[in-house]
């Protein structure tokens, strides 16, 4: 009896050993082959990373021309940034005497260091562009409505985090570009002084000084600022960003997935795969027809044992779409990184200012406004814009169909004319100030506080507000006003950024071409 048991045990041992590959695989992959919808759902639910997604997705959400994949693009570039950033951390040294040389060594000596650094730089730009574009997409498709207003705010938090992440990273190479761009940024933080000086209360309440020292850890840019920016850039802000990103995606789930119109025509979903569940229950009937006897509730169908219409399993279609966006993003970033090097100028030299000292490109539009008043252009106007953006879903509570770009003909029209209105007004403003100057040129003794309140930035803001109110009156719709205002600001941002990038030279003077700049 004992012997038999022993033999059985030994046999069992070898059987188990032989079966190890299969049993391991079964313990690791707990779902069946994805041949049924249930199996497809299992795949998603049993995976930590994938189960952020829902198991079913609406076909409209997969429409490329609807979202343009911008959100996924932003997340993809963030992922690229995380990975390349972690790689860069291996060699980068956050000390003012070592930082510049460590970046040089990354460029020259670290295998593919140049490439990784370029990837990091280009992924930043792609992320910023896609984040702005994503915000525009969500706005224009009115996707902040129907209970999605809080997610809109989370998105704004993510926008601000992205900008601060980019700004803190900009200082790390410790070259002339980094040092002087940070000088501008920290001076904007200190620009409260403009207000307290005008009121004569700076010696009592020095908000500006406090803010500047808070940012820099010191009166000037030095080791404290570098340590602080490094800490924010590699640890604090990425952690906070990931936290808010999770909330953002969680809220998408809780809000019922991506926005979509109530009435979707079949031709709008052309080219998007269907699943077993996609067919409507009453396939022969026209989509808009309702049946009085049945009393169909909008958006759902009385089907049993199947999901809502026009949905399909997330696996594999959704993931293919996301992968496609990720791969496309990575491909673009790779091509850019291979050919175009991230800039690195001379080592930071506090005694030799860059002229013109320019902030990173996404802040250049702001810098144009700051050139008149640091406080108004750098603190108040961005603050007002952020506040305005945040209030959009709370002020515009009109019930409407969502998920359509510009909603309808009226929306398209208003966006169109607002585009041209803003174009003309902004360019006109720039032409005026370049040719005629501004208050300081006409009245040299004028107190700065007047210019703080009367400058191209404030005039543009007020003009746009009047314009949007006019639209609101004409169309009797807050949404229309919102579209006009948003469009005006978007166009203004783009034009000012372009203008400050290409047409502002030393001493912030106007030049048509960079080749005309004096000196150098």
């Amino acid at each position, binding site marked *: 009896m004992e012997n038999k048991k022993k033999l059985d045990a030994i046999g069992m041992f070898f059987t188990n050993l032989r079966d190890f590959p299969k049993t391991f695989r079964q313990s690791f992959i707990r779902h069946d082959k994805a041949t049924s919808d249930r199996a497809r759902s299992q795949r998603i639910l049993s995976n930590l990373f994938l189960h952020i997604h829902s198991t079913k997705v609406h076909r409209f959400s997969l429409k490329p021309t609807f979202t343009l994949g911008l959100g996924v693009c932003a997340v993809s570039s963030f992922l690229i940034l995380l990975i390349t950033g972690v790689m860069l951390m291996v060699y980068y040294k956050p000390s003012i005497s070592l930082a510049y040389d460590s970046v040089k060594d990354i460029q020259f000596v670290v295998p593919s260091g140049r490439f990784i650094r370029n990837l990091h730089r280009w992924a930043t730009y792609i992320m910023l562009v896609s984040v702005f574009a994503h915000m525009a997409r969500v706005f224009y498709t009115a996707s902040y409505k129907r209970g999605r207003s809080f997610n809109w705010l989370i998105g704004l938090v993510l926008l601000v985090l992205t900008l601060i992440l980019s700004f803190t990273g900009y200082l790390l190479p410790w070259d002339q570009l980094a040092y002087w761009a940070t000088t501008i940024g920290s001076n904007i933080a200190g620009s409260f002084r403009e207000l307290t000086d005008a009121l004569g209360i700076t010696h009592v309440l020095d908000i500006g000084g406090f803010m500047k020292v808070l940012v820099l850890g010191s009166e000037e840019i030095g080791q404290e600022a570098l340590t602080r920016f490094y800490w924010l850039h590699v640890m604090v802000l990425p952690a906070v960003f990931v936290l808010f990103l999770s909330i953002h995606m969680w809220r998408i789930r809780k809000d019922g997935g991506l926005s979509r119109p109530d009435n979707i025509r079949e031709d709008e979903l052309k080219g998007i795969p269907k699943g077993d569940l996609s067919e409507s229950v009453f396939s022969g009937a026209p989509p808009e027809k309702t049946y009085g006897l049945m009393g169909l509730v909008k958006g759902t169908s009385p089907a049993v044992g199947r999901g809502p219409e026009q949905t399909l399993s997330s696996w594999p279609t959704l993931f293919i779409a996301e992968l496609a966006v990720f791969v496309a993003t990575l491909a673009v970033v790779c091509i850019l990184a291979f050919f175009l090097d991230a800039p690195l*100028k001379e080592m930071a030299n506090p005694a030799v200012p860059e002229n013109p000292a320019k902030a990173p490109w996404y802040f250049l539009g702001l810098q144009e406004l700051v050139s008149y008043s640091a406080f108004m252009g750098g603190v108040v106007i961005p603050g007002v814009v952020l506040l305005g953006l945040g209030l959009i879903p709370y002020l515009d509570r009109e019930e409407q169909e969502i998920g359509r770009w510009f909603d309808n003909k009226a929306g398209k029209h208003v966006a169109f004319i607002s585009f041209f209105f803003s174009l003309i007004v902004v360019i006109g403003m720039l032409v005026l100030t370049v040719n005629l100057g501004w208050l300081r040129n006409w009245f040299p003794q004028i107190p700065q506080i007047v210019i703080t309140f009367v400058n191209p930035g404030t005039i543009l803001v007020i003009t746009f507000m009047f314009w949007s109110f006019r639209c609101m009156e004409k169309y009797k719709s807050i949404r229309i006003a919102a579209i006009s205002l948003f469009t005006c600001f978007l166009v203004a941002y783009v034009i000012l950024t372009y203008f400050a990038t290409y047409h502002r030279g030393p001493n912030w003077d106007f030049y048509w071409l960079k080749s005309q700049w004096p000196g150098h």
Partner: protein
Amino acid sequence: MKIIILIGSSIILIVLLLEAYHENLGMAWQAYQTVYRKEMSTEAQNKDEKSSTDRYEIKMRQVVLPEFNRVDRCISCHVGMEDPRMTEKTNPLKSHPGDILENHEVEKFGCTICHEGQGRGITTFQAHGQDRYWPYPLLDLSVKVAATSESKPKVSSTDLLQSSCYQCHNAPDLFRIADIGAETLASGIGVFVDNGCLSCHRVNGVGTNSGIELSGIGDKQLSEYDFSSFPEEEEKTIFNWHYQHLKNPRSVVPTSLMPYIDLSEKEIRSVVIYLLSLKKRGYSELSKFARKRLGGKEAFRAFCAGCHGRNGQGNVTIQFAKENTVEEELLEGKKDRVIATSLNNRNLLSSVSDQFLRQAIVNGRRGTRIMPASTFENTGIFPEEVDAVIKLIDEWRKEYNIAAPKNLDLDRTEIKGDSEKGKIVYHMKDSCSQCHGENGAGSEVAPQLNNQDFLQLASDSYIKSTILSDRMSVPSNLTDEQINNVIAYIRSWQK
């Protein structure tokens, strides 16, 4: 969708492969090391040598120099630098010329300390510092001796290299450079000191600061030089800037007050080498305490000649360019003129005592230009050197057969006179004001009398004695009472 994944993945793969090759496999330094290994292999005399060359690793090579805060990777391409068998090869495999590596070992000094360039770079473009954002390109490049230029090259690269010697060889003796074979540099220092440059410029605590500070001028980057008035046809390099500036100061800096100094081309070249050698990057400065003491004539040339002329002849106006005549200079306007008293003349030598001289030199004197106080603290001049200069001036007296005047400052009794009446005498036709100017303002031919430093220093007796001793052309018909009145009037200018 899937097609995007396919195309995108292919692009990524291709880029990554290209990138792997581009930055890791097809590097120039690997090629050079491979060639070197092959050379060594063919030159191998026996089996042992051959096996050791086979084991020669193709890898990045560098010298880490923490004291200099540098890392030099030049030897990744310049592999044959210390190999005597490579003398016949072309660069980068060529061995280093001369015997300088014998006491400047590569492991201890690296390369960039003498040759400049960007040591961390690993491609020719980066390592030679040709990136416009690297401030210190290879020395040859800072001159850019273009092969296509018609004129002879202005300076040879061996001369240029001497500008690096001074960073370490700035030992106490100002002229020891000649001992180490840096003749051009040594002669440059000599010319610099001998022509009174220290009268206006300061180097490491020695000299005055009427003109710009020259310590660390060798660190100035190309982008910090102002070429806006630079002659069009000359190439814009650091060397050329200094060369042109020394040749004709106003052609480069239109508002310059630096006088024209007649130097030969060779001398100018050597001075530029000296200027370029004044680098501060991480080195001990020439201690002004340990400087060699200069003799009377040398000290005068070094500290005084810049304004008072090489032989003490003074400057009525300073000649700013070889072409300009004195008259043209005067026409250009008073503000450009710097008047420095003529010292080596009979009248001054016979009226000014050694004591007076010493006081004036040590205290300094305000004027059209400030004569700085010649103290060790201020200009780095040693007290012995001040003594030597005074002795030199005494020797000038001997050439005129003038006895040393008594020091009348000891006699501080005040001379009483009526300053109102003195004013009339002063401003009479052919009287004091004609040369000493309205209200004692001075002119090209006579010193300023309303100068506060002068008035503080000079006693009434000294002034009287000078007037009486026929300094310049004092009218001879003045009575004693009139002279006393004039002196009272002069005193009235003292604040």
